[in-house]
């Protein structure tokens, strides 16, 4: 539904040209929650801001339902923007307007009749559970409440797409979970395509079905979150996956400084978690396996098991064992060699 082709964006600054986006190609399906993750300065905001043309790209196309939004005249661009809601890290609410007025803003500028605005805003207040705050001002709200206002405002015009730029980065962990769940609900309930920008893997794991990893203005990896989780192909994606568990696993390095032993992280997703893969491996290959640590994570409502296993044996049989695991859809990350 959203097709980004050969997108380029540079900024002109006093100290020269900054290439923020370098030949980005992405397609985002209808109804998906699509994640864009990357380190600070990778170009995430630039990318998402091109999608509603808050930034104009230098070249490339952004097709939304077949229409290239980069080529629209100002009036048609404004109409298109009404179908693309946006949520911001710092909420960006009108500070001198009430919660009600903030949510009504997109409807007022669309010249909706008063009674319809009233009806719609009240429904939205209910959706984000802020009925009792309708006539409060933003300064009187907590961060999580402000973001709920931001979400309600983004939903006001019944958008087809929601862009979320670090929507939870200014919030505490509990509030973050609430907001992420709200976004997920909205996606399910209304079938809205959600594009989520973040630098936190946790957000991607919880929310997204597909993800693109951005580094220095380029997409270095993209695909299903589960696939990338199981088989990270680039250093960047690996560094994002390095959660507390991987760090823990690294502590087993010290004892394994020879090639008769190998420590791996094995991830069991969906199918592979139902099979007795480890015991088959031990039977089949001439190795010994020692389980050092394990955990279970929830990604996208799928259980993912992680084991840190020390495999001992000849180099050849260790290779065989790893190949066997891979053949059984177990994700492998070698923690030492």
């Amino acid at each position: 539904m959203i097709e980004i082709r050969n997108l380029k964006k540079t900024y002109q600054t006093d100290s020269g040209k900054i290439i923020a986006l370098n030949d980005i190609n992405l397609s985002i399906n209808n109804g998906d929650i699509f994640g864009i993750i990357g380190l600070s300065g990778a170009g995430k905001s630039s990318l998402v801001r091109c999608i509603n043309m808050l930034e104009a790209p230098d070249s490339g196309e952004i097709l939304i339902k077949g229409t290239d939004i980069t080529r629209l005249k100002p009036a048609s661009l404004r109409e298109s923007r009404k179908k693309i809601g946006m949520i911001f890290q710092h909420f960006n609410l009108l500070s001198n307007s009430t919660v009600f007025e903030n949510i009504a803003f997109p409807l007022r500028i669309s010249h909706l009749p008063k009674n319809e605005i009233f009806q719609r805003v009240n429904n939205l207040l209910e959706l984000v559970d802020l009925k009792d705050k309708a006539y409060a001002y933003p300064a009187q709200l907590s961060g999580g409440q402000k973001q709920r206002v931001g979400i309600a405002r983004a939903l006001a015009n019944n958008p087809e797409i929601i862009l979320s730029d670090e929507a939870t980065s200014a919030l505490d962990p509990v509030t973050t979970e609430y907001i992420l769940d709200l976004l997920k609900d909205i996606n399910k309930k209304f079938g809205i395509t959600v594009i989520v920008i973040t630098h936190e893997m946790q957000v991607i794991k919880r929310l997204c079905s597909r993800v693109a990893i951005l580094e220095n203005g380029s997409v270095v990896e993209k695909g299903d979150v589960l696939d990338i989780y199981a088989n990270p192909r680039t250093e960047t994606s690996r560094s994002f996956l390095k959660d507390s568990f991987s760090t823990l696993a690294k502590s087993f390095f010290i004892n394994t400084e020879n090639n008769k032993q190998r420590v791996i992280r094995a991830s069991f997703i969906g199918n592979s978690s139902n099979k007795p893969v480890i015991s088959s491996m031990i039977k089949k290959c001439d190795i010994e396996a020692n389980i050092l640590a394990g955990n279970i994570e929830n990604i996208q409502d799928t259980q993912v098991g992680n084991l840190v296993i020390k495999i001992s044996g000849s180099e050849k049989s260790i290779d065989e064992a790893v190949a066997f695991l891979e053949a059984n859809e177990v994700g492998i990350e070698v923690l030492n060699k």
Partner: protein
Amino acid sequence: MSELQHLLELILPSFWESLYMVFFSTLFSVIIGSILGVILVITERGHICEKPQLNKILGSIINIARSIPFIILIIAIFPLSRLIVGTTIGSTAAIVPLSIAAAPFVARVIESSLKDVDWGVVEASLAAGANIPQVIFNVLIPEALPSIILGITLTIINIIGYSAMAGAIGGGGLGDLAIRYGYQRFQTDVLLATIVVLIIVVELIQTIGNFLARKFNKK
């Protein structure tokens, strides 16, 4: 008692004249100045209606207008005053130079108030599909309102000062009274009374301005 009454009788008509001058000068200068101030802001580089050329020219004109001493402006503007109100003396005639002198000041006041509006809020409204007038009237002005009110308060007080000067060359009002009685006839009581009235008026206006600014500020 009768002396006080005499003073009052003397001051009241001048007071109304001053009020008349200040009210209309404020009205016109705020209208002209706001338009210029808004244009100054939105035509700036990176803003919602980028026009660097126009922005530069307008900025220069405003700076030039602000650097002309008021007394010279009044005289220079005599022909224009005659054209607009048919005369060059009296309170009505003084409104023309007063408005023209205060308008560039208002423009800068409005400009700095609008520039203080959080750019993120402007972007949020653009993302929601707002057009330029909608951003100006539904975002920039309401968000800047408290600081605009304080700016206009400052403008009114400045105009009161200027209107006293206008009085000196036939504009009428309290300034005129102070000069005719206090300076030319050495009636110190009249001079003092006008000063007291001016102090009270300025104090009152500042208080009301502060109150309104606080009332509209929800931050």
